[in-house]
């Protein structure tokens, strides 16, 4: 594979060979396995632009982006804007594509200082999106924290490169989130493949440094879950998922929502207040009400 032999500095412009659109680079946003993503501007609009080396892989990403910007009227990935080639002054050609710039916060930063109920809420949001994607016959594949951003209290996918039709092999995955790595199933694309990844994202919110499988992967998973600082209903849903209790994203979402909508019982409120001396009962309640409102809004939205 050829190496990227350029480094865009802010202010550089690049023009597409086929469509002829010109983009001005504002700054680098990040680097992925097969390319670099920049923030750019064209006609006063800001976009995210990805330049890479592997033409095939870039094109597959574009195909997915085109397909999944919107599924059944629901916005899933970033919207697709443009695809083209850029010819460097030294006559080298690099493929690039342009998409909507999703402005947001990485999930770990967003969750900082928030109550543990957000773990369930974030998972519910993810599962709602997955429901739509699965209905279209595709699994997300490489579902991981790095591929998510929180924009206006809502989780959004920013990389749909791993989306795979049901029944095919998952080609892109990250070990920590991959059920194959944990000995919990195959790498065939199906709804449950993504559901497993959701449970690992939930665990990662408690273990930001992640963990490795060790000698006995199943034992490691259950041990980490038992020690995890998260609401019991979350643990119950995660265990249920690992045991194959949920066939669809909807079922798993229901399990979590049931836990979220439950009023905190008196005893659990007391134990939480004593466990966390710094936070008063009142602020816990405030947060609970806020979450309930969000869940209700969410319910409302998914009914539309």
């Amino acid at each position, binding site marked *: 594979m050829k190496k990227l032999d350029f480094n865009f500095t802010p202010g550089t412009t690049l023009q597409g060979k086929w469509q002829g659109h010109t983009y001005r680079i504002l700054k680098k946003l990040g680097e992925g396995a097969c390319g670099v993503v920049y923030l750019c501007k064209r006609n006063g609009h800001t976009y995210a632009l990805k330049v890479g080396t592997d033409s095939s892989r870039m094109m597959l990403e574009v195909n997915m982006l085109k397909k999944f910007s919107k599924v059944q009227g629901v916005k899933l990935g970033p919207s697709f804007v443009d695809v083209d080639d850029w010819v460097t002054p030294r006559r080298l050609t690099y493929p690039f594509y342009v998409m909507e710039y999703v402005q947001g916060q990485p999930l770990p930063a967003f969750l900082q200082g928030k109550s543990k109920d957000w773990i369930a809420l974030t998972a519910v949001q993810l599962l709602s999106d997955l429901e739509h994607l699965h209905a279209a016959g595709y699994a997300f594949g490489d579902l991981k924290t790095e591929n998510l951003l929180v924009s206006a209290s809502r989780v959004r996918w920013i990389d749909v490169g791993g989306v795979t039709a049901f029944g*095919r092999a998952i*080609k892109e995955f990250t070990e920590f989130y991959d059920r194959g790595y944990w000995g919990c199933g195959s*790498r065939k694309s199906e709804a449950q493949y993504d559901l497993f990844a959701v449970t690992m994202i939930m665990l990662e919110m408690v273990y930001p440094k992640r963990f490795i499988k060790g000698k006995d992967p199943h034992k490691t998973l259950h041990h980490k879950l038992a020690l995890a600082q998260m609401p019991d209903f979350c643990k119950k849903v995660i265990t249920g998922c690992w045991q194959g209790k949920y066939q669809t994203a909807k079922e798993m979402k229901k399990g979590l929502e049931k836990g979220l909508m439950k009023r905190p019982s008196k005893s659990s409120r007391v134990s939480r207040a004593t466990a966390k001396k710094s936070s008063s009962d009142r602020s816990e309640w405030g947060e609970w009400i806020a979450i309930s409102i969000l869940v209700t809004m969410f319910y409302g939205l998914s009914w539309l």
Partner: protein
Amino acid sequence: MKPGRLKQILLLTDGCSNYGEDPVVVAALARNQGVTVNVIGVLDDEQRNHPQGLEEVESIAEAGGGVSQIVYQKNLSQTVQTVTRQAMTQTIQGVVNNELQQILGQGKTMEELPPEQRGEVVEVVDDLGEMCDLEVLVLVDSSASMHHKLPTVKEALYDLSLSLNARTGSNQFSIFSFPDPKSTIKKMIDWTPELDAIHGIFSKLSSGGYTPTGPALKEALYSFASKPVEKNRHDGEDPYEEAGF
């Protein structure tokens, strides 16, 4: 387009050859016989700089029309599957590019098509990668310096079979190790569709002080040629119609 059957040799080693014919020449020969040669150089996790001789890894893969990568032990599983897949895609792309040249004229490759058409071509390549049948002969250097890496190798191979068996196309794997005092290479696992029963395969290994990579590759190539043609599991049906070809 017919997906067909791809043949690969995957060589796992940690040093350079020091005995027998030039592995680069043998790799070129393999390519000529329709067998792609991929090479992975395995480093110790605490190894700082690349040891001498590992450039050979790249030359062998290049001559063999395959993919090479030098990795730390801990990343072996992911690398083995990426390298195998990349090589598959590369081979299929080569075939598709040949077809394109026949249609569009000399010198035309996929990269030169406008993005719209390129998008359609990569879908075809992707479909073929999902559906083609694949034969992978794994050739493991088990010389003394590799010994403590063999458990990781085993795990990586199991993981490879997990990845590839999620595909629609069928797979066949076999594992050989070298050096072997009697016949250069030693068959550890005969052709099998799954690598989940490979516990203890590297337990009884004799290691000599030499690394005959070239001769080992050649033996591997012979064993490809003498492989009995097993019945294609798609026989008797037309998979392409079903798959939308």
